[in-house]
C-alpha cells in the first residue's frame, strides 16, 4: 500500500465503522455534474436535460437500449415499406400522460409537427429533415413518410429530441415536464435537485425504484465527499482523476463503459497552415495518444484513429495510421516549408478533458516546433467563436452524437473539411439500408478521413460511473445521453 492511499483508506475504514448506509431500498439519489437549463428535451441540446428526463419522464416511439439497439417504445411494432420511405407504427394502448390525459396517434403527429415547424427550437431539427409527412391512420396507428431513405431514422426516433409530448402540456415542459414515462416529475429545486416519483398508472412494467432525485454537484471533490458520506448513491459519470478513491472500496462499484464521444483535436482545414496535408500529418505524428489518454483521462479513454466509436460494429482501428514519431513529424513540417515550426492558437472549452489534453498536446507539439497558445473559453463564447464564426486554429472537443461521421461531408461544418469523395460516399451511405454495404461505406470514409488527418483523433471518452455497491441495473455504456432509471434496483 502506498502512503498516498492511506488517507483514502482511512476515510473508507471510518465509513465502514459508521454502520450500514441509510438509503431506503426503493429510493435513489444520483449526483450529476450539470444542472439542466430546462427539462424539455425537445427545446435544448444540453446533455443534462436528457440525463434527467430521457426514458424516465419522456419516451419516444422507440427506445434505444444499453447496447445502442432500437427497441419498441410507445410504438409496440412497426413496418417499413420496401423503398424505405414509409414507416407505419402501431401504438401501445392504455398509455397516459402524467397529467392523466390519454396518449394516441394525434399526440405523435403533434410532437413531430411541432419539431418540424418553422419556429421550432429543436436543436436536432436537421436530423428529422427527411420526414415529409406524419399521418394519423387511426388513434393507435401513425404513418411517417420520408423524402429519402434514412438508415438512422429509427435510431433518431429513439433520441430525446423526438420524445412524444402532449399538446395540453408541451409549452410548459421546460419547467414542469409531463410525459408518458415510468417516472413522473415531482419538483425541481433549482440549483439543487430534481425529484421524480414512480408513475403508478405507467403502461409498461413498473420499475423497482419508487423515487429518484438528481442532485446537482459540479465540483469533483464535493461529489467525492457526497458519495463517501452516502449523501448520494451514485453518479453516472465521475471524473476519472478521482476514481482511485472508489476503485478498491467494497462499498462502491465503478462501472467503466463506452460513450459516443469521439474526442478530437479539431483543426481548421480552411486555414493556413492546416490546409497543407503534410502539416496535418506532422501534427498527427507529433501526438502521443497514450500519454494524452493517461494524462487527461487517467487511462480510461479508448484510443481512436478516426472519427468513429470503437465499440461500434463498423469501427475500423486506424490508430497506427500516423504513429507517434517526433522525427517523422519534423521531417513532414520541413517538407511543408515549416522547418522552424509555426505557432497557432488552441481554443479550449470548459471541460476537464479538453483543458488537460490541451496542456499535454501543447507540450508534445512544442517538441516538434509547433508553439500552441492555449485560450480557455466559456461554452457560450466557444460556440460563437469556434463553432458559429469558425474563428480558430485548433480546438479540442468531444463529438457525442452517435454515428456522426456525416459531419465530414458538410464543407460548411466548423472544421471545414471539403472532400467530394467523402461527400458522395456519405450520400450513398445515408440512402443504403443493407448492413454489409453500410459497413463497407462507413469504413471507407473512416479510412479516408484518417489518412487525410482531417483532425487529430485522440480518444473515445469513457463513461465512468460510481455507484453504491448495493445498486444494480445501471447502464454501463452510454449509447445515448441519459441515466435510465427503469432497470435500477437495490440488492439486499
Amino acid at each position, binding site marked *: 500500500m502506498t502512503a498516498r492511499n492511506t488517507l483514502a483508506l482511512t476515510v473508507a475504514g471510518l465509513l465502514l465503522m459508521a454502520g450500514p448506509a441509510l438509503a431506503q431500498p426503493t429510493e435513489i439519489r444520483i449526483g450529476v455534474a450539470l444542472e439542466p437549463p430546462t427539462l424539455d428535451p425537445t427545446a435544448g441540446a444540453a446533455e443534462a436535460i436528457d440525463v434527467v428526463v430521457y426514458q424516465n419522464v419522456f419516451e419516444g416511439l422507440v427506445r434505444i437500449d444499453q447496447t445502442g439497439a432500437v427497441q419498441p417504445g410507445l410504438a409496440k411494432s412497426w413496418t417499413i415499406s420496401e423503398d424505405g420511405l414509409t414507416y407505419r407504427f402501431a401504438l401501445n394502448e392504455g398509455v397516459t400522460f402524467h397529467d392523466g390525459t390519454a396518449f394516441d396517434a394525434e399526440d405523435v403527429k403533434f410532437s413531430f409537427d411541432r419539431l418540424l415547424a418553422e419556429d421550432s427550437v429543436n436543436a436536432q431539427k436537421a436530423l428529422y429533415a427527411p420526414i415529409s409527412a406524419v399521418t394519423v391512420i387511426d388513434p393507435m396507428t401513425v404513418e411517417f413518410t420520408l423524402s429519402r431513405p434514412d438508415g438512422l431514422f429509427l435510431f433518431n426516433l429513439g433520441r430525446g429530441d423526438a420524445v412524444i409530448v402532449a399538446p395540453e402540456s408541451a409549452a410548459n415542459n421546460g419547467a414542469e415536464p409531463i410525459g408518458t414515462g415510468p417516472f413522473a416529475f415531482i419538483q425541481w429545486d*433549482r440549483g439543487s435537485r430534481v425529484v421524480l416519483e414512480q408513475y403508478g398508472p405507467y403502461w409498461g412494467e413498473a420499475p423497482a425504484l419508487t423515487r429518484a432525485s438528481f442532485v446537482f454537484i459540479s465540483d469533483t471533490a464535493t461529489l467525492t465527499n457526497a458519495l463517501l458520506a452516502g449523501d448520494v448513491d451514485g453518479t453516472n459519470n465521475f471524473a476519472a482523476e478521482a476514481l482511485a478513491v472508489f476503485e478498491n472500496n467494497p462499498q462502491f462499484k465503478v462501472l467503466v463503459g463506452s460513450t459516443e464521444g469521439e474526442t478530437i483535436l479539431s483543426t481548421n482545414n480552411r486555414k493556413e497552415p492546416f490546409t497543407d496535408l503534410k502539416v496535418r500529418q506532422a501534427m498527427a505524428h507529433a501526438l502521443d495518444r497514450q500519454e494524452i489518454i493517461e494524462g487527461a483521462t487517467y487511462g480510461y479513454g479508448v484510443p481512436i484513429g478516426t472519427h468513429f466509436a470503437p465499440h461500434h460494429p463498423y469501427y475500423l482501428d486506424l490508430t497506427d495510421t500516423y504513429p507517434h514519431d517526433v522525427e517523422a513529424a519534423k521531417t513532414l513540417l520541413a517538407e511543408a516549408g515549416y522547418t522552424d515550426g509555426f505557432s497557432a492558437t488552441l481554443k479550449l472549452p*470548459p471541460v476537464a478533458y479538453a483543458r488537460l489534453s490541451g496542456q499535454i498536446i501543447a507540450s508534445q507539439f512544442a517538441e516538434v516546433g509547433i508553439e500552441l497558445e492555449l485560450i480557455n473559453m466559456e461554452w457560450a463564447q466557444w*460556440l460563437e467563436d469556434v463553432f458559429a464564426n469558425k474563428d480558430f486554429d485548433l480546438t479540442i472537443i468531444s463529438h457525442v452524437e452517435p454515428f456522426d461521421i456525416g459531419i465530414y461531408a458538410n464543407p460548411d461544418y466548423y472544421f471545414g473539411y471539403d472532400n467530394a469523395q467523402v461527400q458522395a460516399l456519405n450520400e450513398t451511405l445515408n440512402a443504403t439500408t443493407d448492413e454489409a454495404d453500410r459497413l463497407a461505406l462507413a469504413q471507407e470514409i473512416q479510412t479516408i478521413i484518417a489518412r487525410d488527418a482531417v483532425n487529430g483523433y485522440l480518444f473515445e471518452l469513457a463513461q465512468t460511473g460510481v455507484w453504491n455497491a448495493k445498486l444494480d441495473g445501471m447502464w454501463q455504456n452510454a449509447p445515448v445521453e441519459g441515466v435510465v432509471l427503469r432497470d435500477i434496483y437495490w440488492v439486499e
Partner: protein
Amino acid sequence: MGGGFHMTLFLVRRMAGFAATLFVAALVIFLLLDLLPGDPARFILGINATPEAVAALRTQMGLDAPAHERFLAWVGGMLVGDFGLSTTQRLPVAELIAERMAVTLPLSLIAMVVSVVVGLPIGILAAMRRGKATDTALMVLAQTGVAIPNFWFGMLLTLVFAVTLRWLPTGGFIPWDEDAGAAMRGMTLPGLALALPQASILARVMRTALVDVTEQDFIRTARAKGMTKSEAIWRHGVRNALLPVLTILGLQFAFLIAGTIIVENVFYLPGLGRLIFTAISERDLVLVRGATIVLVVVTTATMLVVDLAYAFVDPRLKGRDA
C-alpha cells in the same frame, strides 16, 4: 436641534442618493451585459442546430429590439416588480431570485451570527489581555483564520464532520417548508466555512477598535470614578468600539450575500452567486442583470442601514450628513 425633522431630512437625502446609485448601477449592468460576446440562442440550441432555429429563438427571446428600448422596458418592469423572463429557463426572474434568496439570505445570516458570536468575544478578550500570551495566541488564530482559503476550509469541514463523523450532510439544500431541520443542518457547515474568515476579521477589528478606545480619555474618567480598568473597558469601551465594528459588519453582510459563490460550490447549495455564475455561462442576460441588480440593491441597502444605524447608535451623528 429639531431632531425629528432633521432625521426625516437625513432619511430623505439618503434615500435619494440610494435611488441615484441604483439607477446608475442599472445602466452600467445593462451596458456591460449588452457587450458580452456569445449568443444566448446558440448556447441553448448547441452545435448541431440550424441557423433558422437559432434565429427563431432569438426572436422569441426578444433580442431583436434596439438597446434603449430594452433598457427602458427592463427598468420600467422592475419598478413594478417585473424582472422579465429568464431566457434559458423561461420563468420569471423575480421568482428564480426569490428561490435563491431563501438559501443565500439565511446562510449569510447564520455566518454573520456565528462570526459575531465567536469573533467579538475573541477580539474583546485579546484587547483586554493586550500584549499577553492570550492576546498573541488569539491573534495568531485570527491571522490564520483570515489566511485559509475558503474552499479549502470548507473541504476540511466536510471531511471531518460529514464524511468521517457523518454528523452533518456534505451539502445540498432541502427547502425550508419541506424539512426545516434538514435545511438547517445543511447550512451548518457552509455557515461555519463562511464564518471563519469573517469571525477572524471581526476579532481583529474589535481588538483594534477596543485598544483605540481604551486609550481614550473617557476610559480614564471611568477609572477615576472608581472602576477597574477591565470594568471601564466593559462598560464604556465596548460600546464605543462597536461603532467601527458596525461598519465592518455591514461590509461583511454585503460581501456574504454576493461572495458565497465559492462556498455554494463546495457545498452544492443553490444560492444567488451560483445562479449568476451559471446564468452568465448560459448567456441568460435577463437573469444575470436581474440578479446583479438585486445584489447591488442589497449591498447599497446594507450600507444605508449601517449609516442609519450609526446615526441611531451615535448621538453625535443625529441629523447630520455623515
